[in-house]
């Protein structure tokens, strides 16, 4: 019976960890999305310098939590986000508005996908 209780505790621990990780990933990705949204708004106002700073902040945020992302997400997805943020910085530096905005849409979609895929929703489970 001890083993059954141990297994039940393990199951609860796994469920709890899953919920915690899902929440943490969602929160971190949301923050990245909000930074990218800010950068996008700044570029629409042709404020490339400020947008570059926000992109650098987004890159730092992503790299700062890279261990968490890599531990729980597909590595190719986290790498793709990191590369896209770096490209955004370059577009902001050279003042390439069109490419910046296009990449913003792409990156936000990627981040939304990552965030939503972690949610225990019926369509994700199926």
């Amino acid at each position, binding site marked *: *019976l001890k*083993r*059954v209780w*141990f*297994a*039940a505790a*393990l*199951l609860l621990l*796994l*469920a709890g*960890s*899953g*919920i915690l*990780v*899902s929440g943490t990933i969602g929160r971190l990705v949301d923050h990245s999305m909000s930074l990218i949204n800010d950068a996008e708004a700044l570029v629409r106002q042709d404020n490339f310098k400020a947008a570059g700073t926000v992109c650098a902040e987004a890159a730092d945020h992503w790299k700062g939590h890279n261990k968490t992302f*890599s*531990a*729980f*997400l*597909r*590595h*190719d997805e986290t790498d793709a986000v990191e590369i896209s943020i770096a490209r955004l910085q370059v577009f902001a530096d050279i003042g390439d508005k069109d490419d910046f905005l296009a990449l913003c849409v792409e990156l936000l979609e990627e981040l939304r996908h990552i965030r939503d*895929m*972690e949610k*225990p929703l019926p369509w*994700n*489970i199926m």
Partner: protein
Amino acid sequence: MLLSFIRTLIIYPVLIAVMRLMGKRQIGELEPSELVVAMLIADLAAIPMQDAGISLFAGLIPILTVLALEIILSGLAFRFTGFRRFFCGKPVILMENGKILYKSLKKTRVNVNELLEHLREEGILDPSTVKYAILETNGNFTVLPYSKYLPPSAKDSGIQVNEDKIGFSVICDGHWQEDNLARSGKSSQWVLEQLGHHNCGVRDVLLFTVFPGGGIFLSRKDEQH
């Protein structure tokens, strides 16, 4: 991570149900749940091993979930008979009193040829000599002939036989087996003396077994055919 957990919670019972529906013929040696665990764990472990792009947790979470489910379900099966029947199934009698039970064959989808094959494997050529043939929950066949067709035991024949006595391997591959030495009731000193008689050191021993009563079996590493 949470998705892997929930998916495993869904897939595991579904696989068990599938194995149960497939019937005992598909199993062989393992219970349905054991087979499912073996199948799942092998696959789950292989995925993160092969693909470095997949997080290790993606493999570990489902494995731990399967482990926990298996322990809980087998604990429930141990405690509740009804659950055990659902989880493991129940043995099916295919032959009784020399008669083949067609309904049971149909239910388990074991055809007559397969039944006869299993009887032959048990050394039975005449089905009428079978008292019971049972398909066990792990897919194995148990065949019990009428008592009159069973070979006589020593007890039936009134013969006195000595009980087989198990030997204890006290040295294996040059290493002392302390537990076995304690069980053998002999001291290491006594063992060393025996080795001394054979001009052999502990490191030279492949296997040294002590039998109750003091008999020994010694195999040396340097023994030639």
